[in-house]
C-alpha cells in the first residue's frame, strides 16, 4: 500500500500503482528457483527492441544527471546571488535551471513513453509463445494440471512479469543511477554532511527488513484463513439447495462467522505491518531532513558549509530516500516476476505432443477400415487400462462399445484420436499405422461428439460452425436441423445469434449435446465417434437424434459408446468391454443368445419387459 511521502515522488512508482488500478494488498512474496536462468530466458523477447532500449537508457541516464544538476543550480542561486544580494546573473542562472529541468522532464517522459511500448510488445511475444506452445501440448499435460490452476497460474504469472518489465526494471535502473549520482554529488559538496545523512540508511534498511518479516508472516497466515473462508463460502453457496432442503442455514452461518472472524484478525495483523512501511519511511525521510538541518546549521555556523549546500542537500536527501524506500518493493516485484517467468517457461519448455514421423503420410480418401492390433495402454505405468486389445471395423460399419463405467471405452477413443499414444501394438486406418499419419490430418477425418460437451462463449452459429469454419449459414442451420437442434435454437432470444455465456450455462445439458452433435455433423468426417453423445437427452429426443445420427453414420465407420443399450441395438458389431478387455463380441441378437455379460446388462436395464 502506498501512502506517499511528502517528498517528490518517483515517476515509475506512481505509474506502477496506476497500472494496477491503484495500490493493492501486498501479496505473497515468491522467489524463483533459478532467477538468473529465468532472466536469461526473458532477454530474447527484448532483443528486437535493443536499439530502442539503448535510447531508453540514454534518456534515463540523461534525466538522472539533469535531475542532479537542478538542485545544485538552486544551491548556487542561493549562495552566489540571493544570500549575498547579487542581482546580475540570477536571471541567467534561473534560465539555466529552467532549461535543465525541462530537458530532464522531457527525457523522463520520453523514456517512459518508449519503454511502455517496448515492454508491452515484449510481453505480447511471451504471451504469443506461451499460447502457441500450449496448443501443441499433449492431453496428459492438461490432465495433470486442472484448468483453474493452470489458468490462474498463467494469468497471474504473466501479470507479474508485466509489472516488473514495464515498471520495476526501469525504476530499478533509474533509482540506482540517481542514488549513485546523488551520493557522488553529496560527497563532492560536503563529506561530513553526507556521512551524517547516510546514517539514516541502515536505519531504513533495518526498518524495512523488520516490517517485511512480520508482513510476510502475517500474509502467510491471512492467505491460509482466506483459503479456509473461500472453501466454506464456496461450499455454502454451491450447496445452497441442499442446505436449504435440510434446514442447515444456521450451522453454515456459524461456520462462516468463525472463519470470517479469523480472516479479520489475520487481516488486521498483516495489514498493520504491511501498511506501516510507508508512514515509517516517511518519518525517516523527515529524520533525514532534520539531521541535515541540525548538523548543517552547526557546520554552517562554524563556516564549514553554506546555506545553499544545506538547501541542495535537503533536496538531494528527499530524492535519495525515495528510491531507497522503493528498493525492497522493486526487489520483491522482480523476484515475483522471475518466479512467474520460471513457471511460464516451464510450460513453454514442456515437451510438445509426440509428433508425426518425418515421413508422415497424408491421408487421401479414407475408407474407414480401422484395426486395433494387440493394443496396450496405461495412463500410469503399473495400471493397464487397455490390455491386448484387438478389433476390426470394416468401412461403413457401426461399432458399439458397451460396458460398465471405467471399463476403458473412452480410452479406446482417446487412442484412436491420438490424444494419447499407445504403449504397444498398432492402430491402423486403411492399413496405415496412425503414428505414420499427421495428427492434424488424422483428426480432421474423425468426427467427435464427446461426453463433456464443450462450447465456446460465442454465438450458437459460431459454435456449430466450429466444425467447418467455411460453412455457410444455410449449411449451419441444416446441420442444426439434422441434430434436431433447430427448433430449440429458433426459440432462443436471438436465435442463431444468441451468445452463449461462459461454459454455456444458459443451455441445458441436453441442448448443449445437440449443439455439439450439429458441430460434428457439419465437420462431415470420414469416421464418426460418439462418446455418450446422447446421454443427457431424454429418450424420445434421443430417438429423433438417433435417426439423424443413423443418416449421418451411413457410409461412415462409426464408433458409438453408450450407457443406454437402446441406442446401440442397430450396431453391426457390439463389443463388450470390461476391465480393458473385450469380453464379448457380436450383434445384439448373437450376444443376447450367448446369455453372457451383455445379456445380464440388458436384462437388468430392460426389466420392464418382465412385467
Amino acid at each position, binding site marked *: 500500500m502506498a501512502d506517499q511521502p511528502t517528498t*517528490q515522488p518517483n515517476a515509475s512508482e506512481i505509474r506502477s500503482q496506476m497500472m494496477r488500478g491503484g495500490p493493492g494488498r501486498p501479496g505473497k512474496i515468491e522467489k524463483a528457483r533459478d532467477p538468473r536462468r529465468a532472466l536469461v530466458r526473458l532477454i530474447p523477447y527484448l532483443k528486437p527492441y535493443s536499439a530502442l532500449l539503448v535510447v531508453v537508457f540514454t534518456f534515463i541516464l540523461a534525466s538522472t544527471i539533469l535531475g542532479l544538476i537542478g538542485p545544485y543550480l*538552486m544551491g548556487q542561486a542561493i549562495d552566489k546571488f540571493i544570500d549575498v544580494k547579487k542581482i546580475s546573473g540570477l536571471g541567467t542562472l*534561473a534560465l539555466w535551471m529552467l532549461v535543465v529541468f525541462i530537458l530532464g522532464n522531457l527525457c523522463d517522459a520520453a523514456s517512459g513513453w518508449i519503454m*511502455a511500448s517496448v515492454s508491452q510488445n515484449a510481453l505480447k511475444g511471451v504471451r504469443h509463445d506461451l499460447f502457441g506452445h500450449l496448443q501443441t501440448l499433449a492431453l496428459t499435460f492438461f490432465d495433470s494440471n486442472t484448468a483453474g490452476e493452470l489458468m490462474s497460474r498463467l494469468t497471474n504469472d504473466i501479470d507479474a512479469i508485466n509489472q516488473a518489465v514495464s515498471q520495476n526494471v526501469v525504476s530499478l535502473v533509474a533509482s540506482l543511477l540517481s542514488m549513485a549520482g546523488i551520493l557522488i554529488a553529496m560527497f563532492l559538496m560536503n563529506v561530513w554532511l553526507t556521512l551524517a545523512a547516510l546514517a539514516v540508511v541502515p536505519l531504513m534498511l533495518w526498518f524495512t527488513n523488520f516490517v517485511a518479516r512480520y508482513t510476510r508472516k502475517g500474509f502467510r497466515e491471512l492467505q491460509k484463513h482466506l483459503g479456509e473462508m473461500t472453501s466454506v463460502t464456496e461450499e455454502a453457496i454451491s450447496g*445452497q439447495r441442499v442446505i436449504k432442503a435440510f434446514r442447515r442455514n444456521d450451522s453454515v452461518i456459524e461456520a462462516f462467522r468463525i472463519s470470517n472472524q479469523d480472516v479479520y484478525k489475520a487481516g488486521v495483523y498483516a495489514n498493520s505491518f504491511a501498511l506501516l512501511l510507508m508512514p*515509517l519511511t516517511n518519518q525517516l525521510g523527515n529524520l533525514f531532513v532534520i539531521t541535515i538541518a541540525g548538523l548543517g*546549521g552547526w557546520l554552517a555556523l562554524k563556516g564549514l558549509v553554506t546555506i545553499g549546500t544545506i538547501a541542495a542537500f535537503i533536496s538531494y536527501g528527499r530524492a535519495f530516500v525515495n528510491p531507497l524506500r522503493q528498493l525492497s518493493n522493486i526487489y520483491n516485484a522482480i523476484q515475483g516476476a522471475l518466479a512467474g517467468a520460471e513457471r511460464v517457461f516451464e510450460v513453454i519448455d514442456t515437451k510438445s505432443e509426440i509428433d508425426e514421423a518425418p515421413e508422415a503420410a497424408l491421408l487421401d480418401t479414407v475408407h474407414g477400415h480401422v484395426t486395433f492390433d494387440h493394443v496396450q495402454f496405461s495412463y500410469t505405468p503399473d495400471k493397464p487400462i487397455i490390455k491386448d486389445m484387438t478389433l476390426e471395423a470394416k468401412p461403413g460399419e457401426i461399432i458399439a462399445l458397451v460396458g460398465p463405467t471405467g471399463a476403458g471405452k473412452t480410452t479406446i477413443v482417446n487412442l484412436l*484420436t491420438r490424444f494419447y499414444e499407445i504403449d504397444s501394438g498398432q492402430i491402423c486406418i486403411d492399413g496405415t499405422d496412425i503414428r505414420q499419419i499427421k495428427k492434424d490430418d488424422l483428426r480432421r477425418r474423425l468426427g467427435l461428439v464427446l461426453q463433456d460437451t464443450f462450447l465456446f462463449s460465442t454465438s450458437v452459429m459460431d459454435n456449430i460452425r466450429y466444425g467447418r469454419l467455411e460453412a455457410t449459414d444455410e449449411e449451419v442451420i441444416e446441420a442444426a436441423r439434422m441434430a434436431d437442434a433447430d427448433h430449440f435454437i429458433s426459440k432462443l432470444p436471438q436465435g442463431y445469434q444468441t451468445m452463449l455465456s461462459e461454459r454455456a450455462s444458459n443451455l441445458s445439458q441436453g441442448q448443449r449435446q445437440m449443439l455439439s452433435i450439429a458441430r460434428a455433423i457439419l465437420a462431415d468426417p470420414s469416421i464418426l465417434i460418439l462418446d455418450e453423445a446422447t446421454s443427457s437427452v431424454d429418450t424420445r429426443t434421443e430417438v429423433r437424434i438417433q435417426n439423424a445420427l443413423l443418416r449421418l453414420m451411413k457410409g461412415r465407420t462409426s464408433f458409438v459408446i453408450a450407457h443406454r443399450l437402446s441406442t446401440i441395438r442397430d450396431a453391426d458389431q457390439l463389443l463388450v468391454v470390461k476391465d480393458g478387455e473385450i469380453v464379448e463380441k457380436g450383434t445384439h441378437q448373437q450376444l443376447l443368445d450367448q446369455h453372457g455379460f451383455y445379456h445380464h446388462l440388458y436384462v437388468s436395464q430392460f426389466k420392464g419387459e418382465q412385467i
Partner: protein
Amino acid sequence: MNQVSKLFRFLKPYWKKAVLSLVLLTAVVIMDLAIPRLVQRVIDQGINAHNMQVVVNTFFLMLGISVLDTIFAIGNNNYSVQVGEGVARDLREAIFLKIQSFSFGNFDRLKTGQLMVRLSNDSGVVQRLFQISLRIGTRAPLLMIGSLILMFNTAPQLAMTMLPLLLITSAIIAVFSIKMGPLFLTMQQKLDRLNNVLQENIAGVRVVKAFVRARHEGDRFEQANEDFTERNIRVAQLMSILSPILTFALNIGIVIVVWSGGLQSIRLGNLSTGQIVAFVNYLQTTVVPLMNLVNLANIWAAAIASAGRVNEVLDAVPEVQDAPDAIALPATGRPQVVFENVGFHYNGSTDGSILHGITLTAEPGQRVAILGATGSGKSTLMNLIPRFYDPTEGRILIDGVDIRHIRQDSLLAHIGIVPQETILFSGTVRDNIRYGRPDSTDVEVVAAAKAAQAHEFILELDDGYETHVEERGVNLSGGQKQRIAIARALLTRPSILILDDSTSSVDVETETKIQSALDDLMKGRTSFVVAQRISTVLKADKIVVIDKGQIAAEGTHRELLQSSPIYQEIYASQLGNGVNGE
C-alpha cells in the same frame, strides 16, 4: 458514488475509530508541515543570525516532533486498518447472510462464481476505499491545503504567482482522472477477453484438438493479444507522461521561486533565504498529493463498480418469504398433496410458462411417478412442493393447507429430497448422512445407510463411515454419492419423499439395487419419483406424464400403455420393438 454512499452504513460501528484515525492523521500532517518551517528557522534565525542556541534547540524540537509524529502515524495506521478490516468483515457477513436467505429464484440469477466474487473481491475493493480514505485519501488534500496556507503565510506575493500554476496542474490532474477511468475499464475488458480465449483453450482442449482448430484459436488469441497490447501501451504511455508533466510544473514553480523570490529578497529585502528554501519545500509537498488524487480517482471508480455489485446482492429480495401469519405444519404420517391448477414461469421470463394448469392429487401414502422429456418441467414441479419456488398460478395444498401459509422450515422438516445433482459436503461420510438430522445416533445412521444400499460400500472404504469426503465428493463414484444422498434424506424420516431423477447417473446394476431399497422405503410415505426411464416408474401407484409443462397423461403403467400415445412412444423408445416381450 451513490452506490458507495449506500455502504456508508457499514462504517457506523467504527465511527469512533475512524474519527480518531482522522484526528491523528491531521496531527501527522501538521507536524509534517512544521518541519520545513523549522528548517527555515534554522537558516534565518540560526545560521544567518549566527545563533548556535537556536540551531541546537530547533534541532531537538524537530527531533521531538518527529518522534511524536511517528507515534501518531502508527496510531493512524492501526486505527485505519482496524476500520477497513472491520468494514470488510461486516460486509462479507451481510452478503453471506443475505445469500443464505435467498430462494432458488435468486440463485438462478446470481451464479455461485458471481456471488463468490462479490463476497471476496468486491468487499475487498470497498474496504480498500475506506481504508485509503482514512490515510492518503485525506492526507493528500490536507497536505495540499496546509502547504498552500503556509505558502501564503510565508510569502503572500510569491504564493500568488504560484496560483495559476497550481490551477493548471489541477486541471491536468482532473483531465487525467476523468480520462483514465474509462481507459482502464476498456483495458480490463480486453484483458478479460484475452483470458477468456486462454481459458477456453485450456478447458476445451479436447474440442480444439479434435477439430484441428489450433490455427483458428491461434488467430483468435493473436487478435485479443494485439488488442490488449495496443490498449495497454496507450494507457502505459499516458501514465508515463503524467509524472513528468507534474514534476515539470513543480520545477517551473521552483524556478519562479528562485528567480522572482530571489529578486524580491535582494531588492526589497522582505524575503529571507530560509523562506525561499521553505517555499521550495512546500511546493514539493503540494504537488505530490495532487498525483495521489489521480490514484484515488481510480480507486473510487473501482469501488463504485464493486459497491454496485455488492448492493445488487444486499438489495435483492428473497423471492420466497414466510407469510406473517404462517403456521407450522401439523405432523401427519402420510400427508395428502394436492396441486390445484398450478402454473409457473420463471421470474422475468417472458417466453412462455414452464408449467400450466397442473392439477394433481397424491393421496396419503401414494407413490407418484413423474415422467417426461428433458425440459418438460418435471424438476420444476418438484421444486414447488418445498417452496423452493412459489407457483405463479394456482396453489398447492398439503392436507388441505395452502403451503404458502406454512412456515418454510416446518414445511421442509416434513420433506426429504434427493436432488438430481448430488451435492455432498466436505466432512466424513457419517457427517454427510447425518446432515439432515445432526443429533441422530450412529445406529440410526447405519440403519439409513443400510436402507439406501450404502452400508456395504461404505464399510469397504478406507475408513468406513469416517472416510473423509473430498470437495464435491470426487473420491466417490456417482452411484455411491447418490446412495449417500438417499441415506441422508431417509434419516430425516420425512413424510413426503421427493426423488428427483436420482438414479439417472448410476449404472443399471446399481440402479436395480437402489430401486429395491427405495421400494421398501416409500411404503408408508407420500412420495414423488421423477424419472426418465420407464423401468424406474413401473411400480408407481400413479404415473404422470408431463409434456411441455402440462399433464399429458395420468394412470398406472398398464392403463397408460393402453391409452396414452406419448407413453407408448416413450416405452417404445426405451425398449424397442425387438424385446417387447409381454
